[in-house]
C-alpha cells in the first residue's frame, strides 16, 4: 500500500488565559491510501473537524500546533508557508464543506465556480475550461450540464449543490479529498446518492479520501478504514467492518448500541453523561461514561494498543475485555388495545404554505392515534410532515379537513382551544436551542404549564412537581436556576421534554426532537421518551425523517411524500414488507454497516433527485 498523505502525532490546542493550552486533538496519526476512504467518526466537540482541517495544513484561527506532522509529497504541510499551501489546496488536496448552500458563493454562476480552480491551478481558460467543466458536471450526474452552467447555486436543490461542490473539489484531479460531513442535513435518499457518488468517484479517480462524520452507521457502510475519535483522541482504529463486527473499545461498542438500526427492532441504549469536552491527561477520558470502568482506568491515561492485526484500541482492558457483544433492549410492546377508541383523529387534512399560497403542504392526510400509543410520521424534507404536526398543535391554519380529539372537533387555532384541550396536547420542538426562551430559567420554563393549567397548586406544590419532573428526565436539581445557554444540547432537550410532560398531557407531539443531537445523547433521549410515555400512558406523534429512529420507538408508522400519505401500518410490517416503492427506497437508503468483505452495495433504484421531492427545496429557496 502506498500512502499519499500521512499524519503523525497531530496535537492541536487553543491557548488558555492561564496555564497550558486546552488540547482539543492529541496524538492523531493516520495514512490516506489512493482509492480508499478513511472515516473519522466522533460526536460534537470530539475534535474531528479540527483533525480534518489540520490534515490539509490549514491553520485554524486561534489554535496552536503543539506537535505532529502531515507528510504529503515528501513535505511537511505544517511547516509550509501559507503561499505554498495555497498552491496545494484546491489542486492536490481538495476540501468539501458540510453545507454546500453556505460554501458555494451565491453571487457566482456555476460556470465561474468551476472555472476558478481550473484557471488558477491548471491554467485552463476559454473553451478548454468550459469543456472540462461540462465533463465535471456530467461526472457528478448533474442533469443538463449546459443549462446548469448558467445557473446560480440557490437554483439547485441541497443534494445538487453538494454535487457541484464535489465537482469543484475534483476539478484539478486532487490526490487527496477531505470531506467534512458532506451529507449532514440532506435527506436520506439524497445522502445515499451522494455517498454512492463519492464512493464511485474515489474508485474511478484513485483519490485518497478522508471523511468526517458523526454518523457511525454511514461511515461503517461507506469507509474502508475507520477511526473513532473521543475527546480529541482516537480510541479505536481498524477496518470499518472489523470495528462494527468486533468492537474492542467500550465507547465504540456503546456507540454501535446507541445507533438505531432499521434492520432490527428494539430500543437503543444511550450512553450516560455528556461527551467529554477536553482531552484528559491523567485518566481515560471515557471513564465517567464507561460501563466497564475499573479503578485502573483512572490511574493512568491509556495508550493505543494493538489488539489484533491492524486493529488498535485505546483502553487498558482492550485485550482482556475481548470483543464487546452488542446489546439491545427488548423490542417495545407494540400490542396496543384498540378498544379504547381513538385519541386523536386527523381527517383529510389540507394545509398550504403561508408564503406560497396554492402549493399544498399537506394534501389530504388522515391518521389516527390511540391512547398511549407511539406513532411515527415519516417523510423527507418538504413532505409536509412538520406542517401537519404544527396544524395539530394549533400553530398552522387548516385549509380543509378536521382534527378530532376525543371524538370532538378541535378549533384550528391554539388560542381558540379550551384550556383542558391545550393541556392535553403538548409539543416538543426540533431545536432545543430555539425552543427555550434564553431569558427564562429552567424552573420558570418547566413551571409555566403548571401555572397555566393547574392554577390551584400552591407555590410549594408547583416546586415539588418541577423537581419531580427534573428527576424523571434525569437532570440535576442544581440546574433549576440556570439559563438555557448554560446547558448542553441534550440537557436543553430534556428541559423541553420536562416542560411538555409536567402538565400530564395525553398526547405529545415530537417534531424531529433528536435530529439536532449527538448519537449517544439521541439514544438516551429516545430511551427517556419511551420510558416517560409508558409510565404516564401518554400517546406520542413522532415526526422524523430518520427511519431507524422510528423502528426503535414507534408501534405504527405513516409515510408521507409531497403532502400525501404513501403508506401506513405497524412498524414491523412496514419495515419487513413495505408495500410501496417509495417506502422501499427510503428503507434502502438508510445507511447500514456492510457485512465483512462485502462489496459496496449495487445502486438501489432510486427515483431521480429532480423528482418533485428533490425540487421542493430549490423552489422554496428561490
Amino acid at each position, binding site marked *: 500500500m502506498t500512502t499519499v498523505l500521512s499524519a503523525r502525532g497531530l496535537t492541536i490546542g487553543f491557548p488558555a488565559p492561564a496555564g497550558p493550552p486546552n488540547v482539543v486533538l492529541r496524538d492523531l496519526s493516520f495514512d490516506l491510501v489512493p482509492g480508499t476512504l478513511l472515516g473519522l467518526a466522533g460526536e460534537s466537540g470530539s475534535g474531528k473537524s479540527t483533525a480534518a482541517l489540520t490534515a490539509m495544513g490549514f491553520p485554524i484561527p486561534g489554535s496552536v500546533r503543539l506537535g505532529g506532522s502531515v507528510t504529503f509529497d515528501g513535505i511537511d504541510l505544517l511547516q509550509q508557508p501559507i503561499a505554498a499551501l495555497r498552491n496545494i489546496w484546491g489542486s492536490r488536496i481538495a476540501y468539501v464543506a458540510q453545507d454546500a448552500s453556505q460554501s458555494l458563493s451565491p453571487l457566482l454562476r456555476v460556470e465561474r465556480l468551476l472555472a476558478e480552480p481550473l484557471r488558477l491551478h491548471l491554467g485552463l481558460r476559454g473553451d478548454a475550461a468550459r469543456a472540462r467543466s461540462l465533463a465535471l458536471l456530467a461526472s457528478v450526474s448533474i442533469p443538463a450540464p449546459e443549462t446548469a452552467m448558467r445557473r446560480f447555486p440557490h437554483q439547485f436543490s441541497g443534494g445538487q449543490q453538494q454535487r457541484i461542490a464535489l465537482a469543484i473539489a475534483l476539478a484539478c484531479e486532487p490526490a487527496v479529498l477531505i470531506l467534512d460531513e458532506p451529507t449532514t442535513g440532506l435527506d436520506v435518499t439524497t445522502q445515499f446518492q451522494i455517498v454512492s457518488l463519492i464512493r464511485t468517484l474515489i474508485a474511478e479517480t484513485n483519490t485518497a479520501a478522508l471523511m468526517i462524520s458523526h454518523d457511525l452507521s454511514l461511515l461503517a457502510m461507506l469507509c474502508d478504514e475507520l477511526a473513532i475519535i473521543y475527546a480529541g483522541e482516537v480510541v479505536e482504529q481498524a477496518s470499518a467492518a472489523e470495528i462494527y463486527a468486533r468492537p474492542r473499545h467500550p465507547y465504540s461498542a456503546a456507540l454501535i448500541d446507541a445507533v438505531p438500526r432499521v434492520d432490527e427492532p428494539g430500543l437503543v441504549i444511550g450512553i450516560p453523561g455528556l461527551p467529554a469536552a477536553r482531552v484528559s491527561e491523567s485518566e481515560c477520558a471515557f471513564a465517567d461514561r464507561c460501563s466497564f470502568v475499573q479503578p485502573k482506568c483512572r490511574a493512568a491515561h491509556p495508550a493505543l494498543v494493538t489488539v489484533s492485526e491492524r486493529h488498535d484500541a485505546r483502553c487498558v482492558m482492550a485485550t482482556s475485555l475481548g470483543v464487546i457483544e452488542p446489546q439491545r433492549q427488548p423490542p417495545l410492546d407494540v400490542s396496543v388495545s384498540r378498544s379504547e377508541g381513538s385519541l386523536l383523529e386527523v381527517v383529510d387534512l389540507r394545509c398550504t404554505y403561508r408564503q406560497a399560497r396554492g402549493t399544498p403542504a399537506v394534501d389530504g392526510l388522515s391518521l389516527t392515534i390511540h391512547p398511549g400509543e407511539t406513532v411515527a410520521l415519516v417523510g423527507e424534507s418538504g413532505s409536509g410532515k412538520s406542517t401537519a404536526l404544527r396544524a395539530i398543535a*394549533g*400553530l398552522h391554519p387548516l385549509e380543509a379537513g378536521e382534527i378530532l380529539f376525543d371524538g370532538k372537533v378541535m378549533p384550528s387555532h391554539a388560542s381558540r382551544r379550551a384550556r383542558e384541550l391545550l393541556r392535553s396536547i*403538548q409539543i416538543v420542538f426540533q431545536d432545543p436551542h430555539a425552543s427555550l426562551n434564553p431569558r427564562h430559567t429552567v424552573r420558570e420554563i418547566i413551571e409555566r*404549564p403548571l401555572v*397555566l393549567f393547574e392554577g390551584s397548586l400552591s407555590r410549594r406544590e408547583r416546586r415539588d412537581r418541577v423537581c419531580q419532573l427534573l428527576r424523571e428526565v434525569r437532570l440535576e436539581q442544581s440546574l433549576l436556576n440556570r*439559563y438555557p445557554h448554560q446547558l448542553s444540547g441534550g440537557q436543553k432537550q430534556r428541559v423541553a421534554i420536562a416542560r411538555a410532560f409536567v402538565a400530564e398531557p395525553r398526547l405529545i407531539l415530537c417534531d424531529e426532537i433528536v435530529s439536532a443531537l449527538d448519537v449517544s445523547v439521541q439514544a438516551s433521549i429516545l430511551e427517556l421518551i419511551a420510558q416517560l410515555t409508558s409510565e404516564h400512558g401518554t400517546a406520542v406523534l413522532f415526526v422524523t425523517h430518520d427511519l431507524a429512529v422510528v423502528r426503535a420507538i414507534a408501534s405504527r408508522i405513516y409515510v408521507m411524500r409531497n403532502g400525501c400519505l404513501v403508506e401506513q401500518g405497524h412498524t414491523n410490517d412496514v419495515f419487513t414488507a413495505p408495500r410501496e416503492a417509495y417506502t422501499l427506497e427510503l428503507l434502502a437508503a438508510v445507511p447500514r454497516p456492510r457485512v465483512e468483505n462485502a462489496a459496496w452495495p449495487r445502486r438501489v433504484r432510486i427515483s431521480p433527485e429532480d423528482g418533485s421531492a428533490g425540487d421542493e427545496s430549490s423552489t422554496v429557496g428561490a
Partner: protein
Amino acid sequence: MTTAAEVLTEQPAPSTFRALRSVVTSTGEGRVGFTLLVIFTLIALFGHQLAPYSPIAIATGSPNSGPSLEHLLGTDQLGRDVFSRILAGAASVIVIPLIATILTFAIGGSIGIALGFIGGRFDAVGSRVLDLFLALPPLLVVLVVIASLGSSPVVIIVSVTLVYSPRVARVLRGAAQGIATKEYVQAAQSRGEHTYWILMRELVPNMSSTVFVEFAVRLTYAIIFVATLNFLGLGVKPPSPNWGAMLFESRVTIITNPIATIAPTVAIGLLAISIGLLADAASRQFGLDEASEILR
C-alpha cells in the same frame, strides 16, 4: 471552537441587570460615558441650588466679561452669570428629551412590536403608514405643531414623540419580527398563552439589547433636536436658562466673548457624547453576548 464545558462553566446568567452592569464597568467607553452621565444627572437635579447666582438675574457683573473668579465662565451680554445658567439650564435640556424619548418608546415601541409580532396584512398596512410618517421632515412637522399650538414643554414633548415614534417603531418591528418566529414563542402559543403574556414575557425580554441601544441613540438625537428648537427660539421662553437658547442669545458676541457660546456648546456636546459612549459600550457588550451564544 469553544468547547461545551467552557461555555457551561464560565458564563454568567444573562440577567438584564448584570448585562447593564458589565456595560458600565467592562469597557472604557462605558466607564467614561457613565461617569459623565452621572455628573449631568446631578447637575440636572441640583443645578438650581448649586448655582452661585440666580440664573435669570441680570447685571451680576459687567456684561460680556470673560472668565474670572466671581464668574467662572464669564457673563453674557446682559451680565448674567453663564456658569449659573449652565447649571440651572441642565434640567430642561435633559428632562424634556428624556420624557419625550420614554413616550416615544411607549408609543412607537408598542406599535412596532405589535406590527412585528402580528405580521401579515396588519403589518403590511401598518408599515406603509409608518413610511408615510417617516417621509415627513422632522423639523417641518414640529414647526407646524408649535406654530398651531404655541410653544410649551408639553407641546415640545408631544411633537418630538410624534416625529420619533415611527422611527423607533420601525427598528423594534424588525427586532420583534426576528423573535416572533422563534420556537419558544410558538411553544407559548401552543400552550394557549395570552398575547399580552407572550409579548411581555417571551418577546420583550429578548429585545432588551436592541431596546437599550436604540433608546440611547434616540435620546441623543432628542437632546440635539430639542436644543435646535431652543436655538430657533421655539422652546422655552426667555429668560429661562437653556443651553440651546443660550447659544442663540450669545451668537452676536461670539467673537468678543466666545466663552458664552462655547460653554453651552460643550455642555450639549458632552451630554450627547456621554450617552453615545454608553450606547457604544452597550452594543459592543450585547454583541459579545450574542457572539458567545453562537459559539456554543
